[in-house]
């Protein structure tokens, strides 16, 4: 229950933060109006959006609208922002799922190998890989791949969506960073499990090492990794903006970029809010799930 309360407070503060930033950093009427609007237009907009009322009244109606799923109208597309968001979401989900697949397929085996051959050659190679994953900007990886696979080799389309070939490069560029994170966690989690009593027992009882690792150790070591993957999937949907821009992928990130480029402020506001809300909810779910799985955590609270 306490967690739910914290999550609600977080959501409330999130909306307040965004509300305050929009108001403090300038007249929202100017942001809401199209560039070059006259003073009369601005006054009309102020009245239309209730910007002439006291701040707390404004915040109240802002919240009320959010509660109804009403994020306002897009200026560029002239449609409901939430509808727009929903129409782009499947693309983001597809991209994030394939990226997650890449990151797990790369991250888990390398993490296991690094843990089994700890401090060996593989471990050092893995560390270097993790460092590269965390240091290379994902959009640069994307640009390099376009240069190599699209321009020089001509194997893959450089941008757009539609076929399976279109997904590969953006998904790899996006999954790259997370692969490093998943590898690190697999390694440390695997190391912890390998040092535990039941793994020692399995070894003593004479099981072949491969079976000990695959059946006893890996199964338990994967629990934290998959939890992180769940959180990261939501994160991927919300941080894909640069990769989506590079590959002209029509997901939520691209929508956010267009929102910025066209000064379509309701879109920017909605995406940031929904992204934050998604992450708060997923964190809460993970907490609850852990409490359900593990009674020790439940009774501590």
């Amino acid at each position, binding site marked *: 229950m306490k967690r739910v309360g914290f999550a609600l*407070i977080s959501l409330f503060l999130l909306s307040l933060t965004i509300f305050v930033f*929009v108001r403090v950093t300038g007249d929202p009427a100017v942001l809401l109006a199209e560039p070059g609007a006259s003073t009369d237009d601005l006054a009309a907009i102020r009245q239309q959006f209730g910007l002439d009322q006291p701040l707390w009244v404004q915040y109240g109606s802002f919240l009320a609208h959010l509660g109804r799923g009403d994020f306002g109208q897009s200026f560029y597309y002239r449609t409901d922002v939430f509808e727009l968001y929903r129409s782009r979401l499947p693309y983001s989900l597809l991209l994030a799922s394939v990226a997650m697949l890449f990151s797990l397929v790369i991250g888990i085996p390398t993490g296991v190998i690094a843990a089994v051959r700890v401090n060996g050659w593989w471990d050092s190679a893995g560390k270097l890989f993790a460092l590269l994953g965390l*240091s290379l900007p994902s959009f640069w990886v994307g*640009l390099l791949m376009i240069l190599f696979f699209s321009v020089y080799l001509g194997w893959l389309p450089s941008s757009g969506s539609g076929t399976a070939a279109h997904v590969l490069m953006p998904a790899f560029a996006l999954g790259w960073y997370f692969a490093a994170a998943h590898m690190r966690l697999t390694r440390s989690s695997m190391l912890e499990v390998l040092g535990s009593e039941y793994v020692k027992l399995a070894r003593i009882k004479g099981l072949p090492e491969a079976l000990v690792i695959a059946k006893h150790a890996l199964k338990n070591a994967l629990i934290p990794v998959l939890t992180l993957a769940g959180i990261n999937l939501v994160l991927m949907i919300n941080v894909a903006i640069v990769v989506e821009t590079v590959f002209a992928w029509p997901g939520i990130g691209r929508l956010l970029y267009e929102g910025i480029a066209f000064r379509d402020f309701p879109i920017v506001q909605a995406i940031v809010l929904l992204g934050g809300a998604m992450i708060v909810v997923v964190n809460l779910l993970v907490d609850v799930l852990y409490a359900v799985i593990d009674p020790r955590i439940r009774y501590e609270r």
Partner: protein
Amino acid sequence: MNGSAANASPSRAAALTLAWRYASFRSEGFPVLPVLIIVVFVLTALFANVLAPHNPEVGTLGDRFHPPAWQDGGTGEHLLGTDHLGRDVLSRLIFGARVSLVVGFMAVIFAGILGTVLGILSGYLGGWVDQVIMRITDAWLALPALTFAIFLAAIVGPSAMNIVIILAAVYWTRYARVVRGEVLSLKEREFVRLAIVAGCSKRTIMRRHILPNVLNSTIVLATLMLGVVIVTEASLSFLGVGVPPPQPAWGLMLADGKKGLMAGYWWLTVLPGTCIMLLVLAANLLGDWLRVKLDPQLRQL
């Protein structure tokens, strides 16, 4: 050792500690290469006016898309080629180091000061101050840093100084979390209790006794954050909400380079990205090493 240290003056003890630290730095693989890379970039940034062969912001349209000197069609005039406006790439890279480092260092320092102060207040004072600061931290951490930064940048408009403020506003929470955790354990320690008994005010305790003890963590975190901040700045500039053109920022160069990507003008994409990668990699390696050296508690991060 203990006997002589007791007789020695405080300054001599400090000198001994320093000497011991220096000696242990030497023995445990001082990261020569990363430090060298950072020093080279800092010198390049400092002496950009002397080093750059051309004006980084002005080009000759007749000299567009010259390849680097060693390729067919390259000239000794432009060692690393020219971009879509005929500007010298080498000069832009050199001045770009200045932009990246100035923005990076300032953002990390501002975020560090803000986060450390709030972290100390939160940890030491506790109560409602702690609650308020930590709930804000939770809410801000729920937003993916890049999305949050883009949101802020879209509101306030592009300028190098705005980017510094935005990055500090986004990243202070990391420091606040870590510092608060340290303060919680520090304030239970003997020397703080003695200070309370001796009648020190809360302000004095926080400034004289707590602050010096959390500085190590702050410095380690700042080094690790430098890479993150530089990548974020590059991403913002790449998206057109960071450092405004025609200033020579690496992220901006990558955005411009995309225009020549499909034509195979590789140097416009490969070179600025390599600069980002080298600097970020060096900062991360130095940060990792500092973490192990200065702050064993942070090894888990």
